[in-house]
């Protein structure tokens, strides 16, 4: 799979939480403008892996990382690499919607503002485009200055996606973005992901195998800290090479 569109290159990645060896020698390449899904049973390390890509694991005490993660041609764990700069280019949407306790407008404007955009007209534009891209504009355009806490769970999650888009990242990481949502809200997020991959590289962690099958181009199956199998989604679901993968997707464990 190593063609010239690969955006993230992970090789020999190991991660420990204290004594626990949570990621074991992971190597993979992630393509731009595609959706890559990570699936696997609870505790297999898929969320931990995705949090390596924008260095969110730096926030976890006792976390130790070894190996390389290259974004374009730069090593993201190199000495002197600025995590804030990295996270600006690799955005993240979390499992539970986490809007700030601010207005809808301010939630979106937050990112551009911290990156130095203070011009009101420009911000207005960014807010509108981002909300439109996140398919939320029509629902909230009349109450932009109301608290984001008043939105439904699904709307909050789309707001978080809009907030991520507003800083114009190249990669969007999604850590089980639908696990706290109802089926209708989930369907909306899934069709949004279809749209997003035209512009962005999307990596999604999901518990839901059907979801991975529906939305992704590539799928990685993780098991107990190992990347057991990684390939095109069609191949993984129809013709898995690893026995563990087959057992998992046919529902024999999980």
């Amino acid at each position, binding site marked *: 799979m190593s063609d010239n569109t690969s955006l993230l290159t992970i090789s020999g990645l190991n991660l420990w939480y204290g004594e626990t060896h949570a990621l074991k020698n992971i190597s993979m390449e992630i393509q731009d403008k595609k959706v890559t899904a990570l699936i696997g049973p609870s505790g297999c390390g898929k969320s931990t892996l995705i949090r390596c890509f*924008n260095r*969110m694991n730096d*926030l976890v*005490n006792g976390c130790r990382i070894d190996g390389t993660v290259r974004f374009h041609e730069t090593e993201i764990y190199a000495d002197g690499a*600025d*995590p*804030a*700069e*990295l*996270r*600006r*280019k690799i*955005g*993240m949407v*979390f499992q*539970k*919607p*986490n*809007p*700030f*306790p601010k207005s809808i407008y301010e939630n979106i404007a*937050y*990112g551009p*503002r*911290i*990156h*130095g955009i*203070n011009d009101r007209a420009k911000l207005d534009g960014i807010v509108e485009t981002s909300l439109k891209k996140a398919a939320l504009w029509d629902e909230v355009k009349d109450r932009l200055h109301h608290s984001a*806490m008043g939105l439904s769970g699904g709307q*909050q999650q789309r707001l*978080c996606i809009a*907030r*991520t888009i507003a*800083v114009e990242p190249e990669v969007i990481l999604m850590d089980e973005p639908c696990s706290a949502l109802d089926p209708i809200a989930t369907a909306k997020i899934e069709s949004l992901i279809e749209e997003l991959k035209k512009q962005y590289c999307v990596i999604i962690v999901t518990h839901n195998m059907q979801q991975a099958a529906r939305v992704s181009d590539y799928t990685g199956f993780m098991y107990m800290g190992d990347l057991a199998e990684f390939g095109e989604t069609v191949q993984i679901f129809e013709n898995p090479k690893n026995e563990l993968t087959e057992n998992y997707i046919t529902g024999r464990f999980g």
Partner: protein
Amino acid sequence: MPGMSQHTARIPELTRVRLKEMAIKTIWFLCAIFAIITIFFILAFLIGNAYPAFQEIGIWNFLTGTSWTPANVNPEYGIYPLIVGTLLVTLGAMIIAVPLSIGCAVYISEIASPRIKSLIKPAIELLSGIPSVVFGFFGLIILTNWLRILFDIPTGESWLAGSIILAIMALPTIISISEDAISSVPQEYREGSLALGATRWQTISRVTTPAALSGITAAIILGIGRAIGETMAVLMVAGNAAIIPDPIWNVLSPVRTLTATLGIEMGEVSTTSLHYNALFGIAVVLLVIALVVNILATVVLARLRTSATPSAKTCEGSKNGFRSYLTPVEDLVLPNVSYILIVLAAIAAFIVAGLVATIVVVAILLGIQVLHRQVSPRWMQRIAFSLIGIAVAIVLFSLAVILYDIIANGLPYLTWDFLTEAPSNLGRSGGIFPAIVGTLYLVAGAILIALPIGIGAAIYLTEYTLEGRMTKIIRAGADLLNGTPSIVFGLFGFAFLVLFLNFGVSLIAGQVTLALMILPTIIRTTEESLKTVPQSLREGSFALGATKWQTIRRVVLPPAMPGIITGTILSIGRAAGETAPIMFTAVVFSSRFLPQSLFDPVMALPYHLFILSTNIPGASGAKYGTALVLLLLVVGIYAIAIAVRSHYHRKLRW
């Protein structure tokens, strides 16, 4: 028939159980009634004794009169200079303490590594255990001297000295509560901001701190309350001239606060004079200020509670933490229009002080904002973190200086003889044995009185009554007394126990006064611990057929015990370190003998230190020795409380 005999045997058994339940309920009910009557009796007694002064002087003249000269032939009782003095000292203290505290709180919750956090947090909590007379002693011996030399003035006893000492004393309160508030901001907010490429400082300044703002505001308000209520430390360093500084910003001018006036004049007042009633008038003004502080903090925290967040559960912990500081007072209705006037005047004065403090903070924030535009985020973070580092360094440095001074100078005097002998030559030589014993007697008595009543009342209020208007009023009364300056209890004990009940200056009068002072704290902390036990546990026990008392004893009390024990130990520490409540009720400066009965006066460590440092020249060694013993005693008690709490914290999780 076997069935029959079993049946008859069960009836007396049932009656016995029911009787026992009734008896236990009655005991708790009596405790509650006693506590309630006491609380409201104290309030009524203070207001009743102040009434003649308000009537004769007139409330308006009393509050706005510019001269306080009770000792003159034609005495004047205008407390305006005292109110101004109180506000100025508090304002100065807040200008120093607020930036330092917020810096420290941000450092502890957001920047420090877990190891450093686990060292600094208890250190700051211990700082809150240092008795005020020890701060006053340090201020008088060291700080005023420094100020005198630095500014080349005749004496360093001044507004500035008072503000610095009060600032150090208010630090732990503001830091702990702000840190609680910042730490309880859901982790998702931080992750959300960092994931957008914000720097740590951008996240702290634009997301975390704003989200914790109401908690921080409440912390500042409670810090103001602590500063206004402080007596001994201010009395020892602020110079106590009842004048308004001229010009008003002259920080080197001496000032006198409301509390210091009570501390100075209570002992020498004739009970039949208007002066006596005027002092009660001051106590009522202090009560009103405590009330205002309480209401403001409650309103702010109520906002915190209603602003729903996606992770309401994360905030649950902080709510519990906050509730132990206060609860609503909305149902407290003051009887007389004149009192409403005082409330309004106090609120006005308070708002002025608050406004100035807000302006300072806003100015600093705006300055930061302007810098934000000019400087790159990474440099901004460096600048901000350096400023925070400086704040932490200043706080730790002040703590270190105070502790070092007292330990280094006191340690050589800490001999066996010093601990076991009676003082001689006005305390310059000999030991402090009677003072140690006196303090232990006072504290033991206070706890023996307050503990059963306080815990009983709390059990009755939380477990046997439904939340209603009555419990709210009781809680409001307890909270009001909780925030009342300790000198007001001293005044009550002196007027009611020593004079009216004719106990004289005696051990029992001191014990009861201290007991009254800690009773509200014990009630409230016990209530809070009981409330943290989930209702589902009680229901589970009732569903198995347990009685009320069985449920309380076996299901509710065990998990609530650590909280109750911690509260009690903290109360013991507070009682051991307090000077103001005992100085006119129980203590004498010098006594070669231990008390023979409850009606003998005693010596006590805090008062001994107070007199040694203010009235006895040339007792340097004995002063430091006494300060060190007092410090070790009280800080030791606090350390036990902190250890108990963290021990159970690790064991208990819902």
